[in-house]
């Protein structure tokens, strides 16, 4: 049997155990050192030791669950009345009051919701999926890429701008046209390619397959995957093919900007979502660590000395209390932590200024009819636009073929999110519906109610997720990974998986491992 890379790695594992296996994987450039699939084994346990955890988001819940299981005495301080942090689901009755804004109450029908925070779990985020599986959280597939969905670009020109194109048409034609040019040029010897004659033939064969080209002429004349003019059925004629778009029209539409050979690592097709909303995941954690959580309690002051950490808190009734513990794991977003009397060293406080937080906006729109399914045959996925106020319109991957549905009417970032968030909730909905109407003629008539969030205006978050400049990542991030005395920081902001729940989980794993090693040595 020939020695494949896999068999070599298996051999290394057999001889030298995991560490040799890891070294072998590193040597192959498959290093997994910064990614974790399983929580750290907290060997020896934590009996008689205590940790106060600040924040019951996914990071804090992870730490509370694992440390609690290992025997640590754990107290979790949570400002909100519920667990989950940004992992929220708005359904009927859910309320949100943004800073400087009015109170919104979600009016969706029973069974309908919007995940206005995290909404999807990529297949490779093994850490998040570890808890999904361990807790038996029921999930369904999240359609993160739908060939039938529309691309609607407004800033280009020509006949294909300002009109919805099916992504299947756009992808087939753009890539078919490009493959045709490349294949014909290669065959004619017009390109100075560093390829042997045999390789050149294979290259042309690849392009022919990639672009659905005619094998003899190398012409691209469309392909059934771009859709039909008349679909095949049971009649005498087996369907009427559709006509591909012209290359010049495709180019001028600028809609090709959504195309790439493969999606980014964190945007590939196969994703999951908890059935019933993302809040089901923190609910599963809270069911296991709930008694350790003090809800409706804000952190007012953090102090430490050689013996431990003291956290001063205030609950909703104004009662103040002190929580003392051997160590503190603080998962409060840095945008919020820097406003608290945190007692951190100058080094940590300076480093916290290196991060900035992304303004992020989302809006859920309840539609009385699933017209995107009934009339357009679009089941889940995203409608792509170049309008930065809107970003995408995402169709729900739940409640298929039901009566109503809640879609995501916009997902905006940064300055665009700041701009849209200055509108009242009613005006945000107007903006979203007016744009959607350009793509779907049924949009405005079907609209029933909206629920929007601007994360930068949400009191205990002040931003959607942390963003690091290259300089701050090099200068400040390493500082914040180190403990400040007995205080450890964790969260999506202290990972390279920013903005994802996996970042919070793996950051928590890393820091509880560090706390445990130190506590065990003490």
């Amino acid at each position, binding site marked *: 049997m020939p020695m494949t890379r896999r068999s070599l790695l298996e051999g290394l594992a057999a001889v030298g155990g995991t560490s040799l296996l890891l070294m072998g994987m590193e040597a192959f450039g498959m290093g997994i050192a910064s990614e974790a699939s399983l929580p750290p084994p907290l060997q020896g346990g934590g009996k008689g030791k205590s940790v106060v955890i600040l924040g019951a988001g996914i990071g804090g819940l992870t730490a509370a669950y694992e440390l609690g299981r290992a025997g640590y005495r754990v107290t979790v301080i949570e400002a909100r009345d519920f667990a989950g942090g940004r992992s929220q689901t708005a359904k009927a009755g859910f309320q949100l009051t943004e*800073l*400087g804004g009015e109170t919104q109450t979600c009016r969706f029908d029973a069974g309908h919701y919007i995940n206005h925070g995290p909404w999807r779990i990529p297949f490779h985020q093994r850490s998040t999926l570890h808890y999904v599986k361990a807790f038996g959280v029921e999930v369904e597939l999240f359609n993160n*890429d739908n060939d039938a969905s529309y*691309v609607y670009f407004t*800033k280009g020109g020509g006949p294909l701008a300002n009109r919805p194109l099916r*992504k299947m048409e756009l*992808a087939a034609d753009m890539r078919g046209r490009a493959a045709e040019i490349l294949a014909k040029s290669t065959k004619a010897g017009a390109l100075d390619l560093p390829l042997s004659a045999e390789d050149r033939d294979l290259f042309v064969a690849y392009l022919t397959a990639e672009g659905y080209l005619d094998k003899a002429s190398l012409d691209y004349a469309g392909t059934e995957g771009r859709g039909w003019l008349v679909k095949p059925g049971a009649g005498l004629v087996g369907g009427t093919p559709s006509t591909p778009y012209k290359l010049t029209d495709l180019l001028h539409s600028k809609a090709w*900007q*959504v*195309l*790439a*050979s*493969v*999606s*980014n690592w*964190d*945007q590939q097709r196969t994703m999951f979502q908890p059935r019933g909303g993302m809040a089901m995941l923190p609910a599963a954690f809270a069911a296991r660590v709930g008694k350790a959580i003090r809800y409706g309690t804000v952190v007012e002051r953090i102090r430490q000395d050689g013996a431990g950490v003291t956290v001063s808190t205030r609950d909703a009734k104004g009662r103040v209390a002190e929580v003392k513990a051997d160590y503190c794991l603080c998962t409060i977003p*840095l*945008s*919020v932590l*820097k*406003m608290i009397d945190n007692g951190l060293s100058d080094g940590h406080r300076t480093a916290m*200024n290196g*991060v*900035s*937080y*992304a*303004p*992020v906006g989302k809006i859920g729109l309840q539609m009385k009819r699933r017209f995107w399914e009934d009339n357009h045959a679009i089941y889940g996925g*995203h409608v*792509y636009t*170049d309008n*930065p106020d809107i*970003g*995408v319109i995402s169709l729900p991957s739940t409640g298929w073929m039901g009566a109503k549905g809640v879609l995501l009417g916009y*997902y905006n*970032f*940064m*300055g*665009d999110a*700041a*701009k849209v*968030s*200055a509108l009242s909730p009613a005006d945000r909905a107007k903006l979203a519906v007016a744009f959607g109407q350009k793509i779907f003629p049924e949009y405005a008539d079907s609209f029933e109610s909206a629920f929007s969030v*601007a994360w*930068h*205006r949400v*009191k205990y978050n*002040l*931003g*959607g*997720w942390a*963003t*690091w*400049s*290259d*300089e*701050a990542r090099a200068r400040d991030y390493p500082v914040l990974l180190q403990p400040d005395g007995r205080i450890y920081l964790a969260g999506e902001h202290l990972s390279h998986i*920013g*903005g994802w729940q996996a970042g919070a989980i793996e950051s928590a794993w890393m820091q509880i491992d560090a706390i445990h090693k130190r506590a065990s040595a003490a």
Partner: protein
Amino acid sequence: MRAALLGLLLALPATAAPADGQQLFAHNCAACHMPDGAGIPGAFPALAGNAFVTGDPAAAAATVLNGRGGMPSFRDGLTDEEVAAVLSYVRAHFGNTAAAVPAETVAATRTGKAAEPARPMPAH
């Protein structure tokens, strides 16, 4: 790849009209710093009577370009002229009386690379 695509999607068309500080403020700043520049205590600093805002123009420009704490970077979203216009507006309103900021000051401050931007939603 992510950054490149985002750049395409967010690229703003160059406008010939002079940057309007008041409108830029309404669009980019007012959601957090509030329309009257009073901020929200404990979350968003007031711009009215703020010594940092009315102080060193380069430091103020750097904050708009790079973000800080809960504040995002506006490096990719605003041109030098627009940053200058919005800073000049803030420095001359809400009771503030500091001098205008020239675009050259912003340009000189614009060094280094932006924070990793929010993820776009690419297809394939």
